[in-house]
């Protein structure tokens, strides 16, 4: 039931969309949900007025401590009534306020969404849940403030409001998590009962500050107040709703809600009351000087929020009661004032009080309403504002402070009262009297539609009724709310209109008289005020944001500069650090251990390698030459593998190297075959140093690797190769059996690379150079005779070698991969000797399909073992006796190796033949 209550506004948000263009229907549909919710709430209010609460709870994320707890006590009830009640009035008001161009369904949907979120805050019985709704109000208010999104001030105002309240929300999140952690629960009941534990906790101070930051930003307390005036870019119903009864009240609601848990320390008093005091004064002062109607109201809102905050800061039960009371009163008179301002704006087309004068003549009804509400705001007796303000004055006197500190609160309170009276008077006098209107966009103004005034009338009636007969009208509600705020420790207080001639009354009188005087001398004050340097917080804020954006952009550009060389350098520097940190931080035994003896031929090989690699690096700009040197390095590496008993590696390295060189040659046809010197000498030295460091690091690690000896898996592989894998070439058995899954991935890589290259070369049109690097034309003969002729028998010979290497692979160096590459090289030779078109026209095989078949063979072979209930890639091998041939050894790994073979052939040829065609196409076109 309680969840339905909470869900109603959200569900109701969809309803207005059903109304289409029918505005009355739309508004009625919008009103349905809040009306139902309000009715339901009032019907079930009994226990609440008895000091109890309506509670329901289901777990949502217990791990997080997040339960969906709805808990409606007096305070929640009070706010819920405000939210729903004023919300209903706003819906009615907005029906007439919005013009035909504004999307009504969108407006009502957002408004109801906001209403639901606000309702969620006040009825949450779990702090995390409350936080959820808290942030939802930020989002909703962003969307509402930016409702007139075509207006720049609306967009910027919305963003600023979101930035401040969102930022505050983050602090609140942190604060509440800390709070929950201190208490061990986020359930409100538990938290409220744990005040002593909380205040004694070492994390109390940071937690409190974080929570207060959340509350202050939301309630626009100094120094986070500046977003509120700019939020006035919203349509007036939004301002009337958000900035009287709801959004900004969320902050003070939080102060009230957590009052029993958090208050009662000097830190609380200091922070809360100074923020409140500052806001109270600044708001009241600035409000007087605003020429914009809504601006005046916005700053007065600030001031009243400051007042409420200050009251909570007084840290006494009575002050808290006063605060709750003022929350109610402010909601009523401020909502009505905003609506009145909206009516005036609506009817005159402007909100500038320098142009709006003497409206009394044109719209007396509205004027009366506004006057009553303004009187309430000014704290005139018999109005509700008077009562709470009197309580405020009284409390400011009874703080038990001494010395100057004792004087400060009453002084500030009175001063603020003075200004409050002054701007209230200005709101009335400047608008409804003060001569004739000047140059109004809409002239003559007249009374708004009847129904547009009804919400104002209701609210004004409340102001007066409360002001005249507080004990009857408001006492039960206030009792319930204040009682809940104080967690049941409600002090005695009296809600009388007349308390006798006492100091607070004196202060009220001073405020009234002082306010009138100030207003009387307003012109002198205005000119004085205009001479003060004006601080435009909005501009400061936006400038700050823009500046930090520019800074962020510049910093980002420094590192993310699209320079591969810089990216590489950064990475290599990290590499150097990693290598040397490894050497530095652990013990290193640099003693020369027993090593293999060195022989002259190996040294010669080493010399070859060193010189070839070094010269490659030095003369890389002569590219063909560098490529030849690279071949030398490859050759030496292969021979090195042989030198250290790794024939399979040598074979693989050799074939891979030649295919790589072919590839690079193909590429060099298009790439410039020499390049200009680009780097500076300093750059080259820097790179050389970096390279050397990397080289030293890696070399040192290599040295350590070769001089350390740990037990390795080698013995097992050697022992298992024949019995387990059915082959004597252990390397190959590892590849196709023990670690066949690696090979499986490896051929996949090859296949993908081929596919990728195939894709890269599609629609790649490169201009074939017509002259060689030295500016000479190319040779005329495309396919020299002798090469062509020799290539024919060579093909079969090479294929024979390939087959031979394939078949022996399981027992002796070789295997599918090398065989596949040899086959590819043999076929490539045909391309080189005879040309692409000649070969392509004779070989029908589709390399992509060959690749696919290869992968499939490997895959299917691997899955074959499933039929024997063995894991993927389990091999089987055995002996088959055939007539004539005799005993034959068969291993399923051979089948897998065939898959490898086919993949390699398909992939390699796919890459190279495709590339070969790129140039040939261009030459054909160019008619070489």
């Amino acid at each position, binding site marked *: 039931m309680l969840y339905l209550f909470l869900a109603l506004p959200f569900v109701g948000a969809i309803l207005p969309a059903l109304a289409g263009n029918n505005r009355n229907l739309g508004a009625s549909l919008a009103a349905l949900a809040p009306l139902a919710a309000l009715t339901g709430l009032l019907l079930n209010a009994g226990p609440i007025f008895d000091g109890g609460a309506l509670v329901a709870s289901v777990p949502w994320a217990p791990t997080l401590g997040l339960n969906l707890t709805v808990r409606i006590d007096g305070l929640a009830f009070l706010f819920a009534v405000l939210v729903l009640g004023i919300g209903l009035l706003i819906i009615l008001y907005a029906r007439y306020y919005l013009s035909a161009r504004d999307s009504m369904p969108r407006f009502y949907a957002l408004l109801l969404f906001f209403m639901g979120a606000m309702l969620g805050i006040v009825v949450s019985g779990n702090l995390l849940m409350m936080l959820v709704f808290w942030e939802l109000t930020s989002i909703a208010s962003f969307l509402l403030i930016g409702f007139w999104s075509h207006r720049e001030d609306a967009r910027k105002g919305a963003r600023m409001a979101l930035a401040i309240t969102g930022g505050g929300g983050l602090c609140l999140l942190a604060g509440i998590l800390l709070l929950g952690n201190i208490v061990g629960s986020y359930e409100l009941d538990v938290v409220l009962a744990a005040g002593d534990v909380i205040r004694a906790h070492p994390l109390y101070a940071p937690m409190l500050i974080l929570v207060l930051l959340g509350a202050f930003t939301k309630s626009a307390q100094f120094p986070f107040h500046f977003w509120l005036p700019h939020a006035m870019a919203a349509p007036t119903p939004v301002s009337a709703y958000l900035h009287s009864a709801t959004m900004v009240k969320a902050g003070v609601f939080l102060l009230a809600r957590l009052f029993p848990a958090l208050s009662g320390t000097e830190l609380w008093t200091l922070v809360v009351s100074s923020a409140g005091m500052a806001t109270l004064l600044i708001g009241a002062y600035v409000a007087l000087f605003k020429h914009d109607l809504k601006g005046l109201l916005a700053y007065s809102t600030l001031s009243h929020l400051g007042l409420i905050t200050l009251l909570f800061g007084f840290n006494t039960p009575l002050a808290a009661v006063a605060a709750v009371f003022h929350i109610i009163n402010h909601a009523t008179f401020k909502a009505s004032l905003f609506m009145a301002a909206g009516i005036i704006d609506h009817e005159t087309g402007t909100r500038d009080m320098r142009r709006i004068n003497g409206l009394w003549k044109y719209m007396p009804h509205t004027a009366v309403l506004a006057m009553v509400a303004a009187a309430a705001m000014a704290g005139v007796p018999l109005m509700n504002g008077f009562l709470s303000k009197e309580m405020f004055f009284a409390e400011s006197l009874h703080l038990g402070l001494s010395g100057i500190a004792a004087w400060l609160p009453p002084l500030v309170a009175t001063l603020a009262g003075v200004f409050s009276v002054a701007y209230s008077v200005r709101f009335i006098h400047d608008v409804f009297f003060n001569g004739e209107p000047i140059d109004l966009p809409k002239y003559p103004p007249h009374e708004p539609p009847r129904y547009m005034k009804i919400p104002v009338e209701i609210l004004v009636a409340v102001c007066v009724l409360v002001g005249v007969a507080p004990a009857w009208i408001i006492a039960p509600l206030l009792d319930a709310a204040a009682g809940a705020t104080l967690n049941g420790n409600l002090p005695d207080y009296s809600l009388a209109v007349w308390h006798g001639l006492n100091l607070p009354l004196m202060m009220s009188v001073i405020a009234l008289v002082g306010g009138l005087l100030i207003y009387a001398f307003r012109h002198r004050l205005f000119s004085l005020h205009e001479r003060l340097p004006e601080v435009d917080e909005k501009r400061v804020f936006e400038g700050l944001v823009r500046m930090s954006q520019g800074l962020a952009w510049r910093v980002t550009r420094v590192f993310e500069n*699209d320079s591969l060389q810089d990216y590489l350098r950064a990475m290599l520097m990290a590499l150097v650090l990693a290598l040397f940190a490894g050497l530095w931080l652990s013990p290193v035994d640099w003693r020369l251990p027993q090593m293999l003896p060195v022989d002259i031929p190996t040294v010669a090989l080493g010399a070859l390698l060193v010189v070839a690699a070094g010269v490659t690096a030095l003369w890389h700009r002569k590219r063909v030459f560098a490529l030849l040197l690279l071949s030398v390095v490859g050759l030496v590496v292969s021979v090195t593998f042989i030198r250290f008993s790794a024939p399979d590696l040598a074979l693989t390295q050799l074939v891979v190297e030649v295919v790589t060189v072919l*590839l690079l040659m193909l590429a060099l046809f298009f790439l410039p075959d020499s390049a200009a010197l680009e780097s500076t000498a300093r750059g080259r030295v820097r790179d050389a140093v970096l390279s050397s460091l990397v080289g030293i690091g890696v070399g040192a690690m290599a040295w350590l690797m070769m001089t350390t000896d740990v037990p390795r898996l080698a013995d097992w592989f050697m022992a298992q190769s024949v019995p387990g894998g059915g082959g004597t070439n252990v390397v190959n058995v590892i590849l196709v059996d023990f670690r066949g899954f690696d090979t499986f991935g490896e051929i996949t890589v090859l296949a993908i690379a081929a596919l990728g290259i195939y894709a890269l070369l599609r629609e790649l049109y490169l201009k074939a150079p017509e002259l060689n690097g030295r500016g000479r034309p190319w040779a005329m003969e495309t396919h020299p005779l002798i090469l062509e002729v020799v290539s024919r028998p060579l093909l079969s010979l090479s294929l024979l070698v390939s087959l031979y290497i394939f078949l022996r692979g399981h027992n002796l160096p070789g295997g599918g991969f090398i065989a596949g590459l040899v086959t590819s090289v043999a076929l490539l030779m045909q391309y080189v000797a005879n040309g692409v078109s000649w070969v392509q026209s004779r070989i029908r095989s589709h390399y992509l399909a060959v690749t696919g078949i290869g992968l499939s063979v490997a895959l299917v072979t691997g899955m074959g073992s499933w039929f024997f209930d063995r894991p993927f890639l389990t091999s089987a091998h055995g002996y088959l006796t055939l007539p004539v041939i005799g005993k034959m050894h068969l291993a399923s790994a051979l089948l897998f190796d065939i898959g490898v073979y086919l993949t390699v052939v398909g992939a390699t040829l796919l890459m190279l033949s495709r590339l070969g065609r790129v140039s040939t196409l261009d030459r054909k076109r160019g008619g070489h």
Partner: protein
Amino acid sequence: MELLLSLAIGWLVACGVYLLLRARTFPVVMGLTLITYAVNLFLFASGGITDAGAPVASTDGPWTDPLPQALVLTAIVIGFAMTAYIVILSLRALGDLGDDHVDGDRLPPEDQP
């Protein structure tokens, strides 16, 4: 011999890295190739080097650790696929971008937000 091989590996890496830091695609590819060679040797050396025979179970006597060899084989193949890819990619870059410079800085800088 271990020292010799370490020096060779370190030198290959150094040369490769130097090439890697050049501004054009071709030396970068060559640098990567040199690094790949060095890494293959490095990985191979992780099993220690011996004068012992090849890891073939039919022959008697000592043998070298076969596992690093199998790993290097896989690494060589993968390295080959990657090298092939980047070679073609540099061609594609040449075709698309009009030159073989590796940096993008010379494109008009994006203006500030």
